[in-house]
């Protein structure tokens, strides 16, 4: 197990408190937690790509960064409209 896999494991564990925030706090705070999850998930995928030594996996963090950004933007727009 190399350093990148250890880093990915710790970052995956760091998602748990954000899950608590997203489920317990008001919706707008859940959105903030979701934004952080998107950023951390991108870094997790980056670490896994290096740690597993698969160069084909490097596309996945790019897709994750864009799709999580679009998803959070849609949530932010609708939350702003409906509250």
């Amino acid at each position, binding site marked *: 197990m190399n350093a990148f896999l250890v*880093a990915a494991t710790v970052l995956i564990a760091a998602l748990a*408190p954000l899950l608590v925030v997203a489920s317990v706090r008001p919706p707008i705070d859940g959105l903030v937690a979701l*934004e952080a999850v998107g950023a951390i998930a991108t870094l997790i995928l*980056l*670490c896994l790509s290096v740690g597993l030594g698969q160069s084909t996996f490097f596309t996945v963090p790019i897709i994750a*960064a864009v799709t999580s950004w679009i998803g959070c933007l849609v949530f932010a727009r609708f939350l702003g409209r409906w509250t």
Partner: protein
Amino acid sequence: MQSADLAVDVLLALGVLAELFCVAGILVMRTTLDRLHYAAACTTVPAFLVLAAVLIREHLTSGGIQAIAAVALLFFLNPALVITTARAAHRADDPDSSA
């Protein structure tokens, strides 16, 4: 242990610690805007520390360039998201405002 491996370990440790600091900030802070401040920080310093570690290992191969693209997307797209979320939070606090 070679110096490159040491640099990778140090940069990864700093990046992960900075991310944990941001998560703690989101968990502990009282107001939405304070939490948003820490969520926005997730895409700045920690992301670049992890990117530096990746580039030391991968150099400027296709994987390294794709890692640069992923972190650049995070860094340049996130401010728009932060502004939109802050406006939504402002409306949630004050529904009569036109922001």
